[in-house]
């Protein structure tokens, strides 16, 4: 089990009801973690439509989870 910090933005934040939380998980990578969270919180966005950031930088979904990581789940952007 690892313990990571997860931030939610926009639609994900609203569907989760909080903007960030600590999560304990047995998922080995970020893709698995999102699948878990999606089922638990009924997120409507499929993982393929999200991007991931780890510790303030874009990262690949295959990244191995480690204690204390800051993960950010990034819905499709729409600036401007």
């Amino acid at each position: 089990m690892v313990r990571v910090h997860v931030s939610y933005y926009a639609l994900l934040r609203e569907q989760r009801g909080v903007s960030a939380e600590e999560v304990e998980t047995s998922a080995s990578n970020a893709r698995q973690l999102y699948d878990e969270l999606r089922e638990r919180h009924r997120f409507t966005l499929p993982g393929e439509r999200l991007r991931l950031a780890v510790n303030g930088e874009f990262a690949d979904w295959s990244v191995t989870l480690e204690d204390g990581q800051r993960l950010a789940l990034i819905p499709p952007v729409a600036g401007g």
Partner: protein
Amino acid sequence: MDFRISSEPLDPAGLKARLADPRAGACVVFEGWVRQNNEGREVSALEYEAYPELAEKEGRRILEEAKQRFSLLGASAVHRTGKLGLGDLAVWVGVAAAHRDAAFEACRYIIDETKARVPIWKKEHYLEGESQWINCATRSGSENPPR
């Protein structure tokens, strides 16, 4: 070369003044304004949310790319967050260059890449009372019905 996220109203005149350069013959500015309708629906307000740390980092990368690709003397951009009303300024991009070709192309590049890559989200509030996060529609998502 600066890219910022701001929860306060933007100051276009002050932003432009910072582009001044004796070698500059052309300045192109893009402003994104909140308009009253989008895809046929009447918009009453917009809400922008950002992941500021990463947005500013990615925005600065875009400005650097523009500097590599075009003959720029200066470029900066600021994007609002928070609730905005009709006509409000949501995003400002300004570029200075010796010649206008580079200024137009760089300004266009920066706003296009910003819209595509920078972690900023827009929620539209409609006159009839609904709201939705733009680009977050899913086939099954009830909050974002297909259009």
